[in-house]
């Protein structure tokens, strides 16, 4: 079920402003791909254009192609709703729905598609998703409690459970640990390792050590120059990237000389 993504000469705009220019890459199935780079270079924008969340912002649009297993995401006939249904997303700050219980939060996506779900079926989805997110043992006794009552790290794992409950093919993570403490972060990183066997995962991170720890491949984004659009500088195997990058500026960034 996990799928690969091919990005072909993608330009991303906010209105007239060109944010990211000329991206080409192939994201492999069942692997973790990390996007790194300094602030404001278009990593998150790039990520959001992979499941058409980018166009939610008024005036935002893209030019170029994003192909998921040969199917172009930006074809006229493609329904963005169906795209997002299959390419799940986890955000920077945990965002469980405040009025829903833990149980209902996990099922939120499934409820959209199937109004009537058998209780047993629903229970099974909740248990499977929460186990998948390594949260089951912590919350199994209080599934009826509001999701907002959990700690930040637990909330983030609840959001991951919510995203995998609809069984997406790809999971996008936008700095999923930046609002969390080190212990929660390491729990999420462990989780990413486990999820890799079933999902294609793309993660944006500010933290280079994190990228080195969790990812198989890494894309380094940078601005061409101040005021210029962001671009993909280097896309490479993570080990190679951190040991012996092809590009000078990648090396400068990784060794901490800027950014």
């Amino acid at each position, binding site marked *: 079920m996990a799928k690969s993504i091919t990005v072909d000469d993608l330009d991303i705009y906010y209105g007239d402003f060109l944010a990211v220019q000329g991206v080409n890459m192939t994201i492999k199935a069942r692997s973790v791909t990390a996007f790194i780079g300094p602030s404001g270079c278009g990593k998150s924008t790039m990520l959001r254009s992979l499941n058409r969340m980018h166009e939610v912002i008024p005036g935002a649009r893209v030019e170029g192609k994003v192909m998921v297993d040969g*199917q172009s995401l930006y074809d*006229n*006939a493609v*329904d963005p*709703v169906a795209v997002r249904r*299959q390419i799940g997303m986890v955000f920077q700050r945990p965002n469980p729905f405040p009025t829903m219980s833990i149980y209902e939060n996990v099922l939120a996506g499934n409820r959209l598609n199937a109004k009537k779900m058998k209780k047993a079926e629903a229970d099974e989805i909740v248990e499977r998703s929460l186990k998948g997110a390594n949260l089951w043992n912590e919350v199994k006794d209080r599934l009826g409690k509001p999701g907002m009552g959990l700690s930040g790290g637990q909330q983030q794992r609840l959001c991951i459970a919510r995203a995998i409950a609809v*069984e997406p093919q790809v999971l996008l993570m936008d700095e999923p640990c930046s609002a969390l403490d080190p212990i929660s972060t390491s729990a999420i990183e462990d989780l990413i390792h*486990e999820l890799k066997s079933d999902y294609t995962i793309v993660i944006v991170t500010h933290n280079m050590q994190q990228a080195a720890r969790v990812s198989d491949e890494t894309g380094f984004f940078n601005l061409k120059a101040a005021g210029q659009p962001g671009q993909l500088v280097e896309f490479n195997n993570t080990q190679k990237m951190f040991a012996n990058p092809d590009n000078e500026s990648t090396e400068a960034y990784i060794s901490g000389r800027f950014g």
Partner: protein
Amino acid sequence: MSTTLKPAPVSVASIPLTHGHLPRGAEILVGVVAAAAAGLFPLLLGWGLVAWVIVSVILFIVGLTVWSAIVETRRSATDRMVTALVWTAFGIALVPLVSLLWTVVSKGVPAINSTFLSYSAFRTSLDQPIGIYHAIVGTLVITLCAVVISVPIGIFAAIYLVEYGKGNRLARGITFLVDVMTGIPSIVAGLFAFSMFTAFFGAGYRAGIGGAVALSLLMIPIVVRSTEEMLRLVPDDLREAAYALGTPKWRTITKVVLRTSLGGIITGVTLATARIIGETAPLLLIAGLTTRTNVNPFEGFMTTLPVFIYSQFQKGTAADFELAWGTALVLVIIVLLLNIVARVIGKIFAPKTGR
């Protein structure tokens, strides 16, 4: 843990990204068809324009939903239906509101001429032109009195609530009372002023000041509310900075807190004024009705613009209505100006952010 993860059913993977899709411009197509189909009714049955529009809209919504449900999914059908309904609600609601504004302007403009604003409605001779001078004066005097009464009370109450009474019982009680006062019907405020003045000055006492008291009763809660909000926006850092310099509390409040929130407070007061200037009911009871100009709020009847509109309406001839429309236009313009002034003040005094 990953061992507990059952592989998801294979069927999921085969969900296509595409499904049936209405062609671009489907809305327009359905709209034209609906309008044409509905057009049969007026032709055949002789219905009017209104009926035609209503039937078109209904056909449009039903048509689009059904088509979408057949070609697309049930979910996009719901989405399309709600979108259509929401826009319809928008359209329906705009009709009377636009009609109202248009009527006030189109009927009001002809009534306004050089004598309209400068003469009172009191005729000394039969051919003398009449105007609304007395009502403008009355409005200004009564509103001014109301502002003078309510602004100090409102601001002090708000300062107490925010700066001194944080969370204590009295403060909570006051907040509750202010909330309740926001909901007082204007006529009840009028009755209050009326019965109070009756109790103090005997039956039949009517003067502008009574109206001002009634209006300030309506105005105080608005002022308290908006001032409170503004004072709460002042960051505690600023207060602490002042305390750290050894400034006493009352000086901190006057020099730092009030100065920072001044713009917001003035905006709030202006909006509250705009709100009460159009009040009719309480003034009808207590300020009385006269055709002469009266500048003394403590003695004699006093007419304001809204009350004048009402009295013209009661007289009921076409000429009276013309005056009423003219007055309505003047009143709406005053309210509009106050709103714009409030916005401009808000902009000017807004805390400078960034560069």
